[in-house]
Structures are given as C-alpha cells and as structure tokens.
C-alpha cells in the first residue's frame, strides 16, 4: 500500500532535483517547490509507516523503516545545519553517505566531513580525512573539493578558490559535490563583491545551482543590471527558497547605480617639441611605477622613453653637460645605456607585477630590451617548471594523487598567466615544451598509475592549447588521447 506511492515520489523527487540542476530560469523555483513537496510527502508517508509499525508492536521494523524511508530525506539538511556547524566530522560523513546522493555516496560524505572540519579544525580529524582521501584512488572531483575545503579551513581562501575552480576540468561528476563547489564559489564571490565573476559563472552554468547559489546569482545579475536579471518578485521568491535568509536579506537591497556619465573623449596625444620628450618620459615612468601599471600606460611610457633616448636634443644636452662637468670620454653613450638599462629594469618589474605584455611594435632603446626581457624571463621560468615536472616522471617519483593534481593546476596557472601577459607569440614559443612534457606526464599517469581523470584533464588542456596555437600534429595526438574512455567511480565516461 505504501510502497507504490513512495516509489513514485522518490522518482518524482529525483526528477525534480535533476531538472533543477539543469535549469536557471523561472522553472528553477517550480522544480524546487516540486522537490520540496515530494520530500514532505515522502516524509509523511515514511513517518506514518513507522508509526503504524510501532502501533502494531513491530518496533524493529519501525527502526528499519526509519533508516530506509526517513533518514535519507533528513540526513543532508541535518548534516548541513547541525553536524557541520558543530564540527562533527565523522557524523557529517555518515550523514552524507546516508543521504544517498547517488552511486558514490561517500564522495558527498567526505565533502560534508571536510566542511565540518573547516568549522572546527582538529589535527586528528584532519589526519583522518587526509588518510581516507588519499585511499580513494583514482582521483575524482570529491577529493579535490575535500582538499579545497581543508585549505579554506586553514584560512587559505585563494588556494581553496583555485582548487574549487579546477574541479571543472575533471570528468568525474558528482552532481551533489558540484553543487557544493558552486555554492562555495558563489558565497566567496559575494563576500569579495566579485559580482561579475559570479554572474559569469551563472551565465556559463558551470555548476549546478543550489537555492542559495541561485539567489546569489540573481543578486549579482541585478547589481550588474544585466539583461535577464530577475525582477524584484522573482528575487524575493529565490530568497524565500534559499537558506540563511537573515544573512542574505541585506543583499536584496540592491544599491541604485549612478547614471553612467558618457566617457570624456580621450585627448589626442599632442606632438611635443623635442625638448619635452625627456620630462614626459620621466613623468610617465614615475606615474607607471608608483601606481598599478596598465597596458596603455606601459606602452605610453616605453614610447616616451624610446623617443627621449633617441632624441637629438637629449644627446646635445648630455654632451654639453658632460663637457661642463669634465666627465670622462664616452660618458654620454654610457649614460644613455645605463639609463636605458635602469628604465628597462624598472618597467620589467612593473610589467611582471601587473602581468602585462611588452608593448608591440615599439623597437627602441627601451622597447626592444623590455620585450626580450619579459619574453625570456617568462619562458625561462615556465620551462624550468615544466622541466622539473618531467624530471620527476623520469625519476619515477610519484606524489599522492591530490598533489599531482595540485602541481598540474599550479603549472597550468603559471602557463596561462605567462601567455596572457606575453601574448600569442609567447604561447607559441612555450607550447612545444609544455606539450611534450604534459603528454608524457599524462601517459605516465594513465598507464602506470591509473589516474584516468587526472590524465584526461592534462590531455584536454593540451588539446585546447594545441588548437589555440594551431599545432596540427599536437591536435591529432590530443584528439587520440582525449577520445579514450575514462573509468571513474560513477562508471565509464565517454568524452565528447
């Protein structure tokens, strides 16, 4: 009598949750409401069955029914709102397992446990978590999220953010774990006021949204006055659906943006008289090195220095002063060289700090060495990092899976930063070394260590890079590597 409606409700509940994970329109609220209704009805049915068994005096069947019918529904909310804030690591783990989130229930359990640890960190619980995480091989998304939450618990929010974002490269997808990732990133972005980042994640639908994520995404869209931002009533509906309403109430009051002033037309660069080149260069240099450097400011400064150091007026002034000061022979040329070197050093430091590319097509006393310095410095540091990676493989020195992942993520971040600063030219120069090292590493991890998801992430990234630089041989090899079936805990994954 109870079984059929209960089974139907389970199916409906799962369907509603799955539909909600795919949706970010007004239907999200409808699916959430339906899932909540199904859950309530299942609870009522389960509780009624337990009560009936109790009345009939079959107390052991009451317990069994409670564990089977009621516990999965209450386990996740209890873990989130009770066990996690209390820091009960192992209980949170078992609650995650009991919530039956899918094929690989311990994945969510570990995430809950790490979340609980971040609320009340203890060395013994951390050791327990790390031991259990390292025992789970091959590496999947849950292990990365556990590590990210451990980092967050230690106060390393930047490290946690990078690791959370890296989860997107892993083909093993636990939807419930991905929801936690999305919510952590959304809460983190909201705390930093990074509404654009949050909105971009929402538009790309990178993570399935929990009700809280969905609310924060709506707030981000409203603050950015984006097209398709939710109206006031829809936002209130999202707010009602999400937990922590007291904390999020203040966010609903979206500040009214000041009307945007039309940008003032940029003044055309005036043709300065020759004698003004040097003051202009010094002023631009000081401005660049004392404030946060930008690409246009760097280009302007390099152009000004190139003009000033090539200017006949500067040479004449230096020659006259050298004579007056009784400077040694060749002092003018030496001074020009020294000034160019000092200026290049300072501009290179500023460009490195702000991750700027060398200005293109500026080939003067400062422009040429600056471009060479930036390109070589970045290439050298990248090559030495990839060489260390390759050396470890040759020596057969294997790290725990999560450390292998973190090293790859760090290398990839360094590569991306260097390429975004150095432009396409540096990307083309850096790619061959990265490709040969990365391909060998991916093969080693796949063949010898059965780290399929990790290896696939490396191959996938190399394939994307090969496409970016147009290396046909690398694209062909990348396609072959990326088309292999990946074995995960959730079954075999066939790449796109």
């Amino acid at each position, binding site marked *: 009598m109870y079984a059929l409606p209960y089974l139907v409700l389970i199916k409906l509940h799962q369907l509603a949750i799955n539909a909600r994970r795919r949706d970010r329109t007004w239907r999200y609220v409808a699916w959430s409401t339906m899932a909540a209704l199904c859950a309530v009805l299942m609870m009522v049915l389960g509780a009624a069955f337990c009560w009936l068994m109790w009345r009939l005096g079959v107390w052991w069947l009451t317990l069994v029914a409670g564990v089977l019918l009621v516990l999965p529904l209450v386990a996740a909310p209890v873990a*989130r*709102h009770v066990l*996690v*804030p209390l820091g009960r690591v192992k209980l949170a783990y078992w609650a995650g397992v009991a919530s039956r989130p899918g094929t690989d229930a311990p994945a969510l359990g570990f995430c809950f446990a790490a*979340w609980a640890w*971040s*609320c009340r960190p203890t060395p013994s619980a951390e050791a327990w978590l790390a031991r259990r995480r390292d025992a789970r091989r091959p590496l999947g998304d849950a292990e990365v999220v556990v590590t990210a939450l451990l980092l*967050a*618990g230690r*106060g390393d929010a930047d490290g946690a953010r990078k690791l959370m974002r890296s989860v997107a490269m892993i083909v093993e997808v636990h939807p419930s774990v991905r929801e936690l990732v999305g*919510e*952590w990133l959304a*809460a*983190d*972005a*909201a*705390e*930093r*006021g*990074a509404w654009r980042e949050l909105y971009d994640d929402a538009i790309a639908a990178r993570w399935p949204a929990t009700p*809280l994520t969905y609310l924060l995404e709506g707030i981000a869209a409203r603050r950015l006055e984006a097209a398709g931002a939710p109206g006031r009533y829809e936002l209130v509906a999202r707010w009602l659906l999400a*937990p*922590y309403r007291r*904390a*999020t109430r*203040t*966010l609903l009051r979206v500040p009214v943006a000041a009307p945007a002033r039309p940008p003032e037309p940029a003044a055309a660069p005036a043709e300065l008289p020759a004698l003004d080149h*040097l*003051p202009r*260069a*010094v*002023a631009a*240099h*000081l401005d660049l090195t*004392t404030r946060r450097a930008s690409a246009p400011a760097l280009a302007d400064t390099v152009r000004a220095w190139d003009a000033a150091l090539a200017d006949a007026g500067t040479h004449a002034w*230096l020659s006259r*002063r*050298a004579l007056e*000061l*009784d*400077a*040694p022979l060749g*002092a003018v040329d*030496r*001074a020009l060289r*020294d*000034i160019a070197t*000092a200026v290049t050093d300072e501009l290179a430091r500023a460009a490195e700090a702000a991750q700027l590319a060398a200005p293109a097509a500026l080939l003067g006393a400062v422009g040429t060495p600056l471009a060479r310095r930036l390109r070589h410095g970045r290439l050298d540091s990248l090559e030495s990092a990839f060489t260390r990676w390759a050396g470890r493989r040759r020596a057969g020195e294997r790290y725990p899976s999560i450390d292998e992942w973190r090293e790859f993520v760090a290398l990839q971040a360094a590569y991306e930063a260097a390429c975004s600063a150095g432009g396409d030219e540096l990307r083309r120069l850096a790619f061959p070394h990265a490709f040969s090292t990365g391909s060998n590493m991916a093969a080693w991890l796949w063949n010898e260590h059965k780290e399929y998801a990790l290896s696939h992430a490396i191959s996938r990234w190399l394939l994307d890079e090969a496409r970016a630089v147009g290396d046909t041989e690398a694209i062909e090899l990348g396609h072959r590597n990326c088309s292999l079936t990946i074995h995960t805990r959730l079954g075999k994954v066939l790449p796109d």
Partner: protein
Amino acid sequence: MSIADNPFFVLGLSPDASRIEIEREAQKLLGMLELDFADARSYQSPLGPRPRTPEAVRAAVAALRDPYRRLVAELWARHAPPAQPAAPPEPPRAPGYPGLRRRLGWRP
C-alpha cells in the same frame, strides 16, 4: 637607480648646485642629523617624502663628486616633476561583504 634616492633630492638641492654648495649642504645636513633635527630627518622627492639618513647623505655627496654619476643624476633630477607632498591615504576600497561566507555556513 631609484628616482626617490636621487642625490639632488636627498640633499634638497637643485641640479644646478655647484660643488661647494653640495659639500656645504651635506655638512649642514649631517650636523642636523647628528643633533636629531626633525627638519633634516626627511626629504621631498617626486614620489613623496622619504627618510633621510647620514648614510644616504654621504652616498649622495659621493655620487655627485663623480662627474659621470652626477651627469646621470642631473638628467633624472632636472626632468623630474616637482616634489610631491605626502599623498593622502587612499579611501578604503568598497569591500564586498566581509564575513558573508561564514554567515552563509561556509567557514571560515
């Protein structure tokens, strides 16, 4: 060479100063620093006020005695913008919502 450490700014002199003026000013500044005069403890540079030490004064004089180093120092000092007073502290950037993550259940 940092423009803030330019010998002319350290000594508070114009690039046209003669050798005698440089020596005299350096002796005066070293005496004032020895007596811990507040006026002598800092100097103005295009990057704002900087602390002045006896070592910096001696290094500045030594640099200006060398014709080549003086030539380079003059080039920077002569063409630098006027010295800046201390910049007012920047207003704090509009933060997001500090502590929000904790209030949303994610700690710390």
